[in-house]
Each structure stands twice: as structure tokens, then as C-alpha cells.
């Protein structure tokens, strides 16, 4: 045994070492994996509360209505805002125009005032100068000044006259322009008259040739009139006549056959369902609005409409309605 041990001491030691290492690593792995806890099983997010379709519907409806209201409000706001902006702009423009007018008026008034003041001053000064001349001949310089002022006033008066003259000339020019326009208009009218006369003549010339054609046209018009009348008659017949009744009974039969009545759908139950369909009759929405029945009744009614999809085509396309009101009244 000892000899054996001695002989194989090295492989034995190696083997022991290897086993130790293996065991150690296995333990380590086990330890690590035991450290890694499995994620806890997540229960499905299941409500413990029964979600009532009615409540859900109401909430959805309220939400939609809220959204619609908000949209409408936003729209109104935007429109009001734009109107306000427009009004603002208009007001601003008006304000500006007013300001400009005021400024102009002010300027004009100023000028007039200045002129008036100048005149008054001039008069006063002249009077003063005369008085002074009469009283004291020695104040010549002032008299000179007064003369200068008089000169200025004279200049102003002259300028005013010039302006007046200019205005007069402008008025004359515009009168001339008007006269010219009138003349042109008269010329044009005469030309037109001539043309029309020529046309009339042409027409008269062609009258004989066209008589047959006109007869045809008249016949066509009469035919068209008859067609229109017929159309109108058709439409009103369709809207209130037997075709409409037939459409209603087609719809009723299909939906009645699709309705699986719950026991609570007894006589006295009266429910209105709003249906939306697209051409072709596919039902895109069914919602019970007024109903004195329970949740099972409401659900059965909405389901009946969906089950009846596609709804029958109307016997006349004019009768198709995207939105339908259906009334459910079990009579037992």
C-alpha cells in the first residue's frame, strides 16, 4: 500500500488536486446560480373587478364627447382668435389711418393756424408799426422788420394762391380725363352696338337655316324637363313610398334574425341603437343610446347589429343612409 502510494504519489496528488478544483468550481457555480433568483412569476394584470361594458361605453363616450368638445372649443378658440387678430389688424389699420388723418389734419390745421397767426401778427404788427410810425419815426428798423413780415405774409398768400391754381388745374385735368373716358365709352358702346347689329343681321340671315335646329332644341328641352320632373317624382316616391318601406323591412328582417334575445328582453323593453354603416352595408359601429333593458339586453342588441353585417342594400341607392336608428321592442 505504502509502496503503491509512494510509486503513484505524484499522479495521486494531481488527481486529488484536480478533484478539489472541480468540486470547488461546481460549488461556486451552484452558489452563483442560487444567488441568481428566478424572476418571480408575474401574475397577469387581471382585474379582480368586473368591467361593465356599460360603464366602459359611457366612459369612452364621455371621453369622445370631451375630446369633441375640446376640439370644437379649440376650433372656436382658433377661429375667434383669428377673427380677433383680423379685427385687431383692422382696428390697427383704422387706427393708423385715423392717426395719419389726424396727423394730416393737424398738419393742415397747423399750417392754417400758422398762416392765420402770421396774418394776425402781421396785422397787429402793421398796426403797431403805423402807431409807432405815427408816434416815433425813429423806430425804422422795426418798421423794416414789419415790412419783412408783411413780405413773408405776402409770400405765403402768394403760395396759397399758387396752390389753389394748381388744384384748379388738377380739377380741370381730371374733368378732361372724365370727358375722355366718356368719349371712349361712347365710342365703345357705338362699336358694340354696331357689332350687335351685325350679329343680329347674321342671326337673321341664319334664322331660316336654324329653324329646324331650334325645333330640335325645343324638343330636347322639353324632354329634359320631363326627365327632371320624373326624377323629382322618383326621389319623393323613394323617400316616402313603398321602396323605403321595403328597405326598412329588409333591414328589420336581417337584424331580427340576428338577435339572440336574453331572458330579460321581455315585453316592455324599448331600446334605441345608433348604427353606422358604409356603402356595401358593412356595420362600422353600433351603440345603444336609450334603453330600459339591462346590460345583457344592450349587449345582445349591439351584437345583433354586428351579426347582421353586411346590412342589406337598399332597393334604391338614393335610400342609403350612413347612420340608422334602430328601435328594438320585443313583443311577447
Amino acid at each position, binding site marked *: 500500500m505504502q509502496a503503491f502510494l509512494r510509486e503513484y504519489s505524484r499522479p495521486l496528488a494531481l488527481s486529488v488536486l484536480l478533484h478539489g478544483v472541480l468540486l470547488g468550481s461546481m460549488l461556486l457555480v451552484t452558489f452563483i446560480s442560487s444567488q441568481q433568483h428566478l424572476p418571480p412569476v408575474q401574475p397577469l394584470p387581471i382585474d379582480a373587478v368586473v368591467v361593465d361594458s356599460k360603464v366602459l361605453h359611457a366612459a369612452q363616450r364621455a371621453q369622445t364627447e370631451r375630446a369633441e368638445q375640446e376640439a370644437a372649443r379649440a376650433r372656436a378658440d382658433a377661429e375667434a382668435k383669428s377673427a380677433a387678430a383680423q379685427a385687431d389688424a383692422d382696428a390697427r389699420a383704422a387706427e393708423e389711418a385715423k392717426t395719419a388723418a389726424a396727423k394730416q389734419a393737424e398738419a393742415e390745421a397747423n399750417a392754417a393756424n400758422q398762416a392765420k397767426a402770421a396774418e394776425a401778427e402781421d396785422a397787429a404788427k402793421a398796426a403797431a408799426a403805423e402807431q409807432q410810425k405815427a408816434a416815433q419815426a425813429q423806430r425804422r428798423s422795426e418798421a423794416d422788420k414789419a415790412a419783412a413780415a408783411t413780405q413773408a405774409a405776402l409770400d405765403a398768400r402768394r403760395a396759397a394762391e399758387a396752390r389753389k391754381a394748381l388744384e384748379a388745374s388738377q380739377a380741370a385735368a381730371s374733368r378732361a380725363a372724365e370727358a375722355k373716358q366718356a368719349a371712349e365709352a361712347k365710342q365703345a358702346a357705338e362699336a358694340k352696338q354696331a357689332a350687335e347689329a351685325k350679329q343680329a343681321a347674321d342671326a337673321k340671315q341664319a334664322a331660316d337655316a336654324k329653324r329646324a335646329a331650334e325645333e330640335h332644341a325645343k324638343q330636347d328641352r322639353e324632354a329634359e324637363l320631363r326627365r327632371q320632373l320624373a326624377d323629382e317624382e322618383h326621389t319623393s316616391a323613394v323617400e316616402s313610398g313603398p321602396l323605403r318601406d321595403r328597405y326598412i323591412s329588409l333591414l328589420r328582417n336581417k337584424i331580427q334574425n340576428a338577435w*339572440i334575445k336574453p331572458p330579460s328582453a321581455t315585453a316592455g323593453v324599448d331600446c334605441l341603437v345608433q348604427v353606422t354603416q358604409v356603402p356595401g352595408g358593412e356595420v362600422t359601429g353600433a351603440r345603444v343610446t336609450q334603453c330600459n333593458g339591462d346590460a345583457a339586453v344592450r349587449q345582445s342588441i349591439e351584437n345583433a347589429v354586428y351579426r347582421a353585417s353586411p346590412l342589406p342594400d337598399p332597393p334604391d341607392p338614393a335610400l342609403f343612409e350612413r347612420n340608422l336608428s334602430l328601435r328594438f321592442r320585443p313583443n311577447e
Partner: protein
Amino acid sequence: MNRQLALMALIGLVMFCPRTWAELVVEVTKGQDDAIPIAIVPFSSPEEAAASFDVAQLVSDDLARSARFKSMARKDMIDQPHTGAKIGFDDWRRLSNDYILVGQLQPQGADRYNIVFELYNVLNRQRLLGYQISANKAGLRLASHQVADMVFEKIIGVRGAFATRIAYISVLGHLPSKTYQLMVADADGANPRVVMQSNEPLMSPAWSPDGQNLAYVSFEGRLPTVYVQLLKTGERHRVSARAGVNQAPAWSPDGRKLALTLSTREGNLDIYTLDLATQAATRITDDPGIDTEPQWSKDGQSLYFTSDRAGGPQIYRVGVQPGDKPRRLTFQGSYNARPRLSPDDSQLAFVTQEDGAYRIATMDLRGRGDVLVLTRGHFDVSPSYAPNGAEIIYASRDRGRGVLALVSADGRVQERLVSSEGEVQEPAWSPF
């Protein structure tokens, strides 16, 4: 300025125009009496659980038995989703389903499972139910019946009665060695167990309002005796063993009294009430004819019973206060007996004789008293309402053998519960 006015007018129009619905009003006054199509997708479950229990199958069987549903065959399912998120609604709708039930059976450690299920309306994609029910292996049947109950109620609008029980009398063997057994089973007939066994007749099982006790008549002492037995422990009390007849016990709605039939010394049968705590008996009827088979009204203020005081058996009602005069309720036909009230007191079910056969009929107690004969058998007797009032269980005969049968309260649906051996009679449906 004009532009502003026009704008305001436009806004006003937009805001105040009501949404218009075409006045094409279609009136629907008749519905198709048809079964509602539903897909009950097999629940996902680990293999060992799957091997042990099929929740979807049981729910499907329950709903199909109600005849108000038809469930899609599994082989026709093109997909088997287990959560609502995986349902391809268009496909299920194309396969003509109105509803879909999906779910999972999740093991939760030793002998504990979660049944997780979701019910959707395929047509509008609405989620109608989402629940989780926890149960041990033995409780999986009951939990599955509860799933069926919830689906039934959500869609039909009436509480389901799948998770309830029935009591009945089973008779084995032939004379002179007959064995009578008082049995209790699930409403679908599964899990039958013996409550009481005797070589002498057992009769008239009646559930206490809390569903914990059964009252019944036993002839084990040769004379009819009324016992009350607690189901959980099997412990029982003799509550009426008076001289003569003690029969047809019925619990008062508060569970404190029994109405029953007792006899005078001369053998005249009358209705009495028995206070279970004090053992005091109060006489309710006093007539030389036979008065029997009493049944309480929901408010506990009156009793319905059978009497032959006018010649043949007819049904009467009497107030429980002393001195009230019984009033006759049935006038159609020469035999009307064994009255049972619907849970909401709106209907009376009873046995009537028609063309020489005994059949189950109902009478409308709220309206004009219309009578409707529901069954077409030759010997249909012992009606008992389901606690939701939707169905009536009764005893019938099939090729000379006593069987149990079901009829919906409107007579539309009829079914049969077949027992493997012996005769079954006198079914009584448990409360919820």
C-alpha cells in the same frame, strides 16, 4: 365687419348643429331563439396539470347544457390564444363567434392552482371579464363551474347555477332488498356522494336556506320521521316524530322553522309549522281533507300547499298568521299538486295531469295566472327550481326507469340527467 359677422354665424352653426341621425327607424320586435356562439379555447397548462383537469371542457359542457350557448368544436379552432392580447378578433369573427373565453391553469406550488381567464366580445372587441380563481386540485371542478357561472351571467344577464348542487333519492335493488340512498351531487351530476342510506324508504329532501343542512323523511323506525342532517359532519337530529304522519318538510326563508304535514289522531292530515329551536308546532290548516306538500313564500308570510278539500288535489295559499282562510289558486284540470315557488316568487311550478299523464306546469303569479305546461313526459313529477330560477329539475321515467330531467323555466330547453344505476327520484336543487 361683414366678414366677422359671417364668421361668427358659421361658428354658431358648427357648434349648435346637433349630430343628425337619419330618421329611418327600424323596429325589431322579435328575436331569434338561438344559442349564442362562443369559442372556449383550451386553457394553457403545464403537462401534469393538463393531464389532471380540463377547465375549458367543463366550462364548455356547462354552457352547452344550458342550451343558451353553442361552443365551437376544438378541431375548428385555427389558433389557441391564452391571453386577450393574443386574440385575432377578425379570425374569430369570421368563424362566427360572438364571444371568446381564453385562460390558463397555473400551478402555484403543492396542490394549488390559479385559473386565470378572460372573456371578450368578439364583435366589438370589448373585454367583459378578467378574473383569477385559486383552487386546490379537488376544487378545480367547482372553480371551473364558477367560471361558467360568471360567463353565463355576463352574457345572459342571469346568475349562473352551475356551481350549485342537487339532492335526490336513489333506489337500488328490488324488493324485498331495496336500498334507499339520500344523495348530493354537483348540478351537472358529477361528484355524487351518499348522505344517508337505509333499507327503509327515504323521502322529501329539502335544503336549508344556507345550503348546510338537509331535512328529509326517513321510515327507518317503521314510522315516518323528519330528520335534519348537517352535510359537513353528517351529524343529524330527529326533529319530528309525532304519532301518525310526519312528512313533506320545507324550510322557512329564515331557516328557523319547518313547515310540514302532521296528522291528527283520526288520521286527518294538516299543515303545521315547527319551530326548530323550541319544537313548538303551530297548526296552519284545519280541514277534513288532506292538506300536504307545503312551501314557503319568499317573505315567509304565506304557505302554498296541496289539498283535496274540493275533491281532487288543487293548490292553495294560506297566510301563516292564525285564522287565515286558504285561497284556491289552480282551477285548470282535475289534478294540480306539489307546488314549488320560483326564487323570486313570480312563478309557481307544480305537477298537473293532462291527457292522463303527469307533467310539469308553471303558473304566472304576477300577471293573469297563465298556466304553461312545460314537459311532454308521462310521469314528470317533483319539480324543483334552480336557485337562479332559469331551470326546473324534476323526476321523470325513461323506459320504466326513474331519471332526473331539466326544463328551462320558459319550457324552451329540455334535458335529461341519466344515472348509471338504479332509480332516481325527488330531486331538490340547492340554494346558491
